[in-house]
């Protein structure tokens, strides 16, 4: 997280446990009950428009700071594995999406 101003970043300086004023979309990717630590989560807008992408964490986790509305979450992993979910986000909410591939 970076800040170019004097003020603290919205949501605080550490990873947010709550959404604050942000529209957070987060979750974990698993396969056969095990976290998928190598792979990518992509957030897509209307018409499959690319919005953001993050590598999955050690625990298969990902997090996006979106805007209110409908999004598509797509997961890519080695071996051509992929999955897609529809997501609704809103300010002040943490939308949890757990994905099994």
């Amino acid at each position, binding site marked *: 997280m970076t*800040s170019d101003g004097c003020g603290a970043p*919205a949501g605080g300086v550490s990873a947010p446990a709550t959404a604050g004023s942000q529209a957070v979309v987060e979750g974990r990717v698993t396969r056969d009950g095990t976290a998928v630590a190598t792979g990518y989560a*992509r957030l897509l807008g209307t018409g499959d428009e690319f919005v*953001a992408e993050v590598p999955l964490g050690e625990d298969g986790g990902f997090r996006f*700071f979106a*805007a209110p509305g409908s999004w598509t979450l797509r997961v*890519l992993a*080695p071996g051509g594995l992929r999955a897609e979910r529809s997501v609704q986000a809103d300010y002040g909410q943490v939308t949890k999406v757990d994905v099994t591939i």
Partner: protein
Amino acid sequence: MSRSDVLVDADWAEAHIGDPHVVIVEVDEDTSAYDKGHIPTAVKIDWKKDLQDPVRRDFVDKTGFEALLSERGISNDDTVLLYGGNNNWFAAYAYWYFRLYGHDKVLLLDGGRKKWELDSRELSTDVPERPRTSYTAREQDASLRALRDEVIDSIGKRNLVDVRSPDEFTGRLLAPAHLPQEQAQRAGHIPTARNVPWSKAANEDGTFRSDDELRRLYEGEAGLDFGKDTIAYCRIGERSAHTWFVLHELLGLPHVKNYDGSWTEYGSLVGVPIELGEAR
């Protein structure tokens, strides 16, 4: 210059692991990615610690760049192969630095870290020891970098390419959706800019689209006049380095600059014009 002079695929990289004339360099925003595993023999450049000035809002100067490359064991004659996460954003940004400081033998790995990982290629946690060199950089090439006054003067005259997502362009978001929404004071875009998100230049695996597809995208769909000079910008200059690479290095347009101040600077300037909503 053609695509094969600046872009190589993973097979090429694999074949040059251990080549004494090729230095593989991983450049990342999340530098812990390197520590978890990298292309064998690759050294690390930290986008923030190594490439940004620690005090002023600017990037590392000529002396700093020389010190960095000398310390990493990179010499003037080496071919440098750059790759990274985030679809090569920061690798393209570092590539732009290497060009700015006059290093000619620099290449980008098509697809970067993502394609390497999705292909399940070998990753290593061994950190190579490279003997120190005495690297000499050239003076910064001003023809590749746009500063704010030049950007303001270019409104309505040159191609301004805003490579952020449509939501950032129209003012719905202030930063990419994987980052907290902070940064510039105002949302929107520079008047007369066209919005061509960087992601349209890349396939899902992070590789670049073909030259024909890229030409159609910028000239056909976005209506850029390839006869005019072009300035690319984003939020902090790394996604626009990706687009600068496409326009200047892959498509060979002669006059393309990256505005690295980008929206975090422009969107905080007092008194400059800003547009909201779709491109006009």
